[in-house]
């Protein structure tokens, strides 16, 4: 039952990414050239609603579907890892035109070359895991 619920959420996510063109390389490129409001509108709307829903959940102590307190785990403090990691992520995001959610959506949509991006992303994650102790955080 819970598995089915997550599957439906994922399907809704995939359809949203594809239909809103957030999974399109072209939209990412256009965003980084500041030539359209589209991607900023998507992120801005999701963020504005997210801020409000997060505040409401905290303020009224709204419980999860299973009666538990909804946990918001604060991110660890820091600067270097977020800035350096962010810049590296951004370089890849603009080049591949896909982030870790939409790349799977594109695979489902039938763009087989995206599998190279997915395999490389898994490899990149693996390399981070190997180098983690040696990197400044």
């Amino acid at each position, binding site marked *: 039952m819970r*598995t089915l619920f*997550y*599957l439906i*959420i*994922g*399907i*809704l*996510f*995939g359809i*949203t990414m*594809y*239909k*809103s*063109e957030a999974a*399109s390389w*072209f*939209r*990412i490129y256009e965003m*980084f050239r500041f*030539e359209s409001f589209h991607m900023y*509108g*998507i992120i801005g*709307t*999701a*963020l504005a*609603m*997210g801020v409000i829903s997060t505040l409401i959940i905290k303020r009224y102590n709204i419980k999860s*579907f299973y009666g*538990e307190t*909804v946990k918001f785990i*604060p991110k660890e403090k*820091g*600067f270097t890892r*977020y*800035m350096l990691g962010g*810049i*590296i*992520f*951004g*370089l*890849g*995001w*603009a*080049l591949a035109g896909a*982030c*870790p*959610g939409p790349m799977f*959506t594109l*695979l*489902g949509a039938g763009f*087989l*070359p*995206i599998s190279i991006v997915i395999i*490389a*992303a898994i490899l*990149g*994650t*693996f390399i981070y*895991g*190997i180098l983690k102790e040696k990197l400044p955080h």
Partner: protein
Amino acid sequence: MNLIYDPWPWYISGIAIALIMLLLQLSGEKFGMSSNLRTLCTICGAGKQAHFFRFDWKAQRWNLVVVLGAIIGGSIAANFMTNQNAVLINSNTIEHLKTLGFESAGTAYLPLELFEMHVFSSPKTLIILFFGGLFVGFGARYAGGCTSGHAISGLSNLQLPSLIAVVGFFIGGLIMTHFLFPLIF
């Protein structure tokens, strides 16, 4: 506006993403797609190589189901909810892309120069896709999250680290788009 066949406007998409995050929060989980890349490493046996991959991946199974859904959703949207594939980006963007050699700009969902089957016989394109993915995977884990984990859920919870990461995403994206693209393409 036809929600089945026409591309969705930004506000519909934004509302849907916020709803997805809310549903995940209310089921006791969090919205973050790049964590799955780490889980996949662990399933492939990366725990033998690094402590970072030694964790109970079964607790993350729900997120892999979300990914499976994202694949199915992409298939449904592309095969049954699309009349025409062209992404109608700004005409200036199209002009600019053509100067870089992207003739498919304005006529396709993804640039055919990077995502058509013939790229499997083009080493240069394979290298581009490979490094794109490598940076996304490495950067997401280094920064502790990607677009979903930082730009949407982290910022929704007013987390300063997420703001730093998102600024980083844009610095990287702008460097790639404005300075490196003319050298690569």
